[in-house]
Each structure stands twice: as structure tokens, then as C-alpha cells.
């Protein structure tokens, strides 16, 4: 039996928790790297597949999709961001969409942010449709579960272009097309860079991204398969999640240094975790980049700077500047061209040799 007084204290405690969470969830740490988003003239996305010549002819056309013709200059365009703009990738992605919309003179750009809540992303998309959005660019939070939003868009004949993550649905019917990187390929390239940095032998720890995220799964698969195929001398001794966050990456690395002191290399599935790992290594008296090799994916400005300083060994880019390519794809679509199901962009790779020169193109 709970005494009233105790239960009151308890209730007050959870009220504090509830209020704090409500109030603070909006004010999470914001990444303030200088000019996050980078110089938009540099580091533009380049389509890798299909090549420009192959892109024409086939694919999803205006008539196949059944959308009404539209001049983007007179159109209301909606952009649904998936996660808080608290990391450089999301900051650069949103900024790039906004910049490009302003550049080509879209009548109105609606932007929403789902704050990592799937239910919010669904209502965000429905809200934008209710506000008259005629073309939607969506960065899906999850591959599954956006069906109600896609159906609502299809019912209004509003094309949906997904960027950076793919949805499990039928292209040209449930959504128009997908623009993004090949995450398995990024993992593979990270493995190649790791083999080069370590000379093909060593004990590697992997800092995984968030559990249940397709990006995590793909970047792990690409890396693990490539290492197994190309470098039998590399042993993967630990795989732990750092949830794509710098503080988690640091925490996991601190524990790994204690439990597996013989680790010679770290593969971080994003830059933030890599930077956390670098901090942990330095605190433990090890030289990151030398005693322990570090390879990561994303290409944020802070990571490329660390690379130039010799604290990282390689960074595989995952280019977030979807604005120009997204609107170019929309323009092509409304000009009657066919849009392929997957438009895969070419990501660059940074290493010690090009880090300083590439700093301007990092985000």
C-alpha cells in the first residue's frame, strides 16, 4: 500500500520527468560546426547509377505515375525530414533542400521534422497534403510503416520522392523514386580503406549505428562481407552499438579499451561515433590514427578536419546535399522524362592525402 504522501512525491517525480522530456526533447544539443551544411557550391551530388545516358527512355514517367502536370515555380512543395537537425547530415540535408527551393523559385516550400517519431512523420505528410502540397520530398525515418502517408499522397495524386532511405513499397505506384547512397557499398569501401590502413591484419571493433536501422544493417553487412572476402588477417573482435551518437560512441569505446585492450582498429558507422571514439582513445593514452586506426562514414567537416589532423585514417562520404538532385529529378519528371526507380549517388572518399584540400566540400 502506498502512503498518500509517498505517492504524491512519486507523482511529482514523474511529472517532472514528463515535463522535462516534453520541454527538452525540442532543445537537444545542436551541432554548431562552422557553416554546417558546407559550401553549397562544393561537394555537389553526382549520380553514379544510372548514368545520364541510361537514365532517359525507361523509368517512371508522368503518364505512368498518373500525376497532373506541374510547374515547380507555381507549386507548393513539401519536405518531410525524419530526424532532429542535431547532426551535420540532417542539417546539411534540410539546408540543401531549402536552398535549392529558393534557387529555382518554388512558390512555397513546407518543411516538417518528425523528430524521430514515425507517427509524427505520417501526420506531417498528411498535414502538408492538407495544406495543398503538390510534390513531396520525404526523408523516411523507417523503411516500413509510412504506408498511410503514401496512400494519402497517392489518393491526391501527389508524387513522393524519397531521399537517403528507401521505403519498402512499389516504385512509380506508392512513391516516385529513391535518391540516395548505396549503404552496403559504403561499408565495402570502408572495409577497403580499413584493409589499406591496417595492412590487412589486426583486431577490429565495430561501432554500430542504431539497432533496427537499415543503414546500420547495410553498413555492417558491406564491411563484414568485404573483410571476410579480402582480408582474412583482420579479425572482428567486437560489435557494439553507439547509436550514431558521439557520446555513446565515446562510452562504448571506453568500455572496449578496458575489456579488449588489444584492439588495433575501429570501424565507426558514422563520423559522430568515430569522433567519440577518438576522444576515448586519447583519454586512454592511445594515439588515434596511429596506435588504433579509425575509419568512419559520412564526411562531416569535423571528421575531415580530424582526418587532416591525423586522428582518423579514412572517411567514406555519404553525401547529404539532396536539394539540387531532388529538384532536378522533379523537373525532369514534369518535363516528361522517365525517372529510374533508384538513383544512386556517387560518394567520395577522404584520406590523409586529400583531407585538407577537401575540407571545403565537407559538411
Amino acid at each position, binding site marked *: *500500500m*502506498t*502512503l*498518500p504522501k*509517498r*505517492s*504524491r512525491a*512519486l*507523482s*511529482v*517525480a*514523474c*511529472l517532472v*520527468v*514528463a*515535463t522535462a*522530456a*516534453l*520541454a*527538452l*526533447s*525540442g*532543445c537537444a544539443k545542436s551541432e554548431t560546426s562552422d557553416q554546417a551544411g558546407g559550401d553549397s557550391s562544393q561537394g555537389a551530388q553526382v549520380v553514379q547509377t544510372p548514368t545520364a545516358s541510361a537514365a532517359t527512355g525507361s523509368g517512371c514517367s508522368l503518364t505512368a505515375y498518373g500525376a497532373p502536370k506541374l510547374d515547380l515555380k507555381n507549386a507548393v512543395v513539401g519536405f518531410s525530414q525524419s530526424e*532532429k537537425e542535431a547532426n551535420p547530415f540532417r542539417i546539411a540535408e534540410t539546408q540543401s533542400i531549402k536552398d535549392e527551393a529558393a534557387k529555382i523559385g518554388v512558390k512555397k516550400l*513546407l*518543411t*516538417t*521534422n*518528425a*523528430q*524521430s*517519431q*514515425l*507517427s*509524427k512523420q*505520417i*501526420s*506531417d505528410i*498528411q*498535414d*502538408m*497534403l*492538407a*495544406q*495543398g502540397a503538390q510534390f513531396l520530398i520525404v526523408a523516411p*525515418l*523507417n*523503411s*516500413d*510503416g*509510412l*504506408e*498511410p502517408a503514401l*496512400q*494519402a499522397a497517392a489518393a491526391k495524386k501527389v508524387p513522393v520522392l524519397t531521399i537517403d532511405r528507401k521505403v*519498402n513499397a512499389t516504385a512509380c505506384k506508392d512513391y516516385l523514386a529513391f535518391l540516395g547512397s548505396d549503404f552496403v557499398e559504403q561499408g565495402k569501401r570502408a572495409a577497403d580503406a580499413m584493409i589499406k590502413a591496417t595492412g590487412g591484419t589486426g583486431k577490429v571493433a565495430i561501432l554500430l549505428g542504431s*539497432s*533496427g*536501422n537499415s543503414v546500420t*544493417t547495410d553498413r555492417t553487412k558491406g564491411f563484414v562481407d568485404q573483410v571476410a572476402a579480402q582480408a582474412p588477417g583482420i579479425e572482428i573482435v567486437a560489435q557494439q552499438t553507439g547509436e550514431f551518437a558521439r557520446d555513446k560512441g565515446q562510452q562504448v569505446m571506453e568500455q572496449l579499451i578496458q575489456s579488449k585492450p588489444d584492439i588495433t582498429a575501429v570501424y565507426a558507422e558514422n563520423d559522430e561515433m568515430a569522433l567519440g571514439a577518438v576522444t576515448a582513445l586519447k583519454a586512454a593514452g592511445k594515439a588515434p590514427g596511429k596506435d588504433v586506426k579509425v575509419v568512419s562514414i559520412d564526411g562531416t567537416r569535423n571528421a575531415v578536419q580530424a582526418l587532416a589532423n591525423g586522428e582518423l585514417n579514412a572517411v567514406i562520404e555519404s553525401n547529404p546535399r539532396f536539394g539540387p538532385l531532388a529538384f532536378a529529378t522533379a523537373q525532369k519528371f514534369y518535363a516528361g522524362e522517365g525517372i529510374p526507380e533508384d538513383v544512386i549517388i556517387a560518394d567520395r572518399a577522404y584520406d590523409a592525402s586529400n583531407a585538407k584540400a577537401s575540407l571545403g566540400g565537407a559538411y
Partner: protein
Amino acid sequence: MNPTSSLTAPGTGTTPSAPTGSGPAADRGRADVSGRERLAALVQRQGVLAVLLLVVVIASFVYPTFATLDNARGVTVQASFLAVVALGMTLVIITGGIDLSVGSVFALGGVLAAWASQWGILPALLVPLVACGTIGLINGLLIARAGMAPFIVTLASLLGARGLLLALTDEGATTYLVPKGSAFAELGQGSIGGFGYPILVALVLFAVGGVVLQRTSFGQTLFAVGGSSDAATLMGLPVARAKVTVYLLSGLLAGLAGAVNAARLSSGVTIIGAGMELDAIAAVVIGGTLLVGGAGSVSGTLWGVLLLAVIQNLINQIGTLNSSYQSVVSGGFLILVVVAQRYLSRSRSTV
């Protein structure tokens, strides 16, 4: 809470509109404050509805795309899942407890429903209900029989249910899909006059919940338990049974909401439900239910849920506001309500 009022008028808690059984001592001095007290009770019960209506009316004039049928459909379907979860939370909070596990249980219910949907609509509903009901039952038994603090018990099951979900889905890598066009998918995606079945489910549950709470002895027992658990025991009310039942119901409702949500999303998405318990608590408190227990209503919770949903919708309508402000506005409302509650309950405790 004032134990005397619970003893003399069990079930009505601090509601002053039921003077039957009040002792003569309580009657003295009641006349002077009854007007103010009645106003306080009215604000407590219907204040959120007034705020909701005000916000809706203003928004309808300011934003031409707000008061459209399309928008109403979208907002209400989305709100119906939180509403069902918050219904269970209302019952728990009225008894003076708290259920932090509902977000995880909601997600677990969704995954189990999507997994079981391959065998038809019945397993798709039964499997999550049994599993989530069991979690609720365990919560209830530990709290009522073993006398453990609800906060800790349900925090443990929050973690446990999330862990179970990750284990079932291979750390979230597997997403079970609901067969397209199945009766179960229809439950989440079908609609009457454009208003989805989930809304209907929520409305029916709220109607039943309202009747149970206000018109049955079980409902009255919940108020008595929340008013003063000790006094309710002394009166011979089945306190432990009532407590076990509310946690069981909370688990069942969260599981059901998760299942219907999975039907709507066509898949057992693993990343949902995190933080949902806090939204539910916020909606319940905004709806005028006292966090210390003993007073509250399910209708208030419904308005609270709708208010939160409308705020989210309005932030999108405004467009220029960063969506983080949604949390700021919701948090602001919560503080306002708590301050108002504190003031109102003080004015009443002078009786």
C-alpha cells in the same frame, strides 16, 4: 487528498456535486465556498475542452487549410492510438498510480500483431492482447500484492517489453508485414465516411470507459483508492483487486492500440512507441485528471489527446516554426494545467 471526503463520499473523490453522505461537519462552511468550488470543479473538468474549442475556432479563422474535412480525418486517426493508450493511463492515474510501460507495450503489441496476422485477424488481435495483458497483470500484481512502487515496476516492464520486442525482431532487423487486403489490414486502414475505423475503436472504448468509471461500483472504487488507499481498505473495498485490474486494462489497451496501429501501418514497426508514455501522461494531466489520483475523467483525457494532436497540426500549419516548438507548446500547456490544478485544489481544500 482529504481522507474524510473519500470516506464519506467514496467514488466522487473531490467532486463536490455529490453531497450525499457528507457529515454535518463537512457541511459547515461549505455554502460560502460552494460557488467558487463549483467553478473550480467545472474548470477542472471542462477547462481543457474550452481551451481545445478556442484553439480550434481561432485556427479555423487564421488557417484556411485547418478546418477541412481532410485535415480533421488525418488528425483524428493519428490521435486515436494515443487516445486508447491514454484511456488506460487515466484509470491507472485515478488510482494514484502510473504506468510507464505503455509505450513499449504499444510497440510490442504492434510487432506481435503483425507477426500473427499471417494466420488471420483473430490471432492478430489475440496474441498481442494476451502478451500485453500478461505484462499488465504482472505490473498489477507486483504493485498491488507485493506493494512495490508503480514507477519502478512499470519502468522495469518498459525496459523488459522493449527488450522482448528487440529479441523477437532480431534487434529490430526483421519487420513483420501485415498481408495486404486482409481483414486485419482493413481494421486499420478502412473507414466510414472517410473517418478511419481506429477512430471508431477509440470512441467506443472511451464510451465504455466513461460508463465504467462514472456509473459502476468498480469505477467508484478506483476514485476511492486514489483518494486514499488506506481509507478505501478500511471501508472494505477491494483495493488490491482494483489496482491489479487497472494495470491489466492499461496493458490490454496499449496492446490493442499497438495492434490496430500495426494494421494501419501494414507492418510491425519496431521504432515506434518510445516516449509515448509521456505523451499519454501529459494528455491525462492536461485533461484534468489529478496526478496524485482520486479525481479525473476519461472525457477530459480525450480532449487532452486532441489538444496535443491539434497543437502538432497547428505547428505544421504555421510552417515557419521549427517543429521542436511543438514540444515547447505542449510542455507549456502542461505547466499551465498543473499550476491551475494546484490553485484549484488549494481553493477546495479550504472546505
